[in-house]
């Protein structure tokens, strides 16, 4: 079953605008991760945010996590044409100390940035 539900399914913006993607999940998590996938390629890790963290930044990326609402958002500021890709959230749900990394992925948001 899909833990993460992403919204919107597709987003089209102009270069320089900000892009916001949302992810909701159903169960308790250890962490939530965001990945990018360019067409025909594998996924590339962007940010990992742990369940006890509320916000993380990496360059033009900002991720927030609200465990009370079971939701996360990815903000890309000042977008570029090169940001055009699919973006996925993934949750690590395993309780306890050992986590095998059995990630559950959302269906993704397709972002198109027009020059």
């Amino acid at each position, binding site marked *: 079953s899909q833990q993460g539900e992403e919204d919107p399914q597709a987003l089209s913006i102009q270069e320089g605008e900000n892009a916001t993607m949302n992810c909701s999940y159903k169960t308790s998590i250890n962490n939530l991760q965001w990945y990018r996938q360019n067409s025909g*390629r594998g996924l*590339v890790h962007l940010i990992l945010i742990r369940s006890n963290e509320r916000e993380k930044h990496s360059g033009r990326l900002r991720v927030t996590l609200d465990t009370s609402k079971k939701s996360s958002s990815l903000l890309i500021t000042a977008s570029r044409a090169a940001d055009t890709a699919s973006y*996925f959230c993934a949750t690590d749900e395993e309780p306890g100390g050992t986590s095998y990394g059995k990630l559950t992925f959302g269906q993704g948001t397709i972002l198109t940035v027009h020059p």
Partner: protein
Amino acid sequence: DAGITQSPRHKVTETGTPVTLRCHQTENHRYMYWYRQDPGHGLRLIHYSYGVKDTDKGEVSDGYSVSRSKTEDFLLTLESATSSQTSVYFCAISESGGRQPQHFGDGTRLSIL
């Protein structure tokens, strides 16, 4: 980029034939994963490994088996391929399981006719 090589990159085969996909890593990471990616489903975990000869099932393991005889290689086998197994298959590795990011190969596009 993490050293992950998937082979073959593309394969077309017929229903009922056995198929083996290979994932090779040069990072000496303990954890390895096989996912399939289908439209409308995102990525779904098939099997994973947490060490040599240590493997377990994921969400969609029916019809698939895996083996890991060396740290660097993780094989995915479809014993008797079916058309429902047409998909893009991704291998991923992780240094320490769920606490760290996963690094993905570029995928194998498998078509079963």
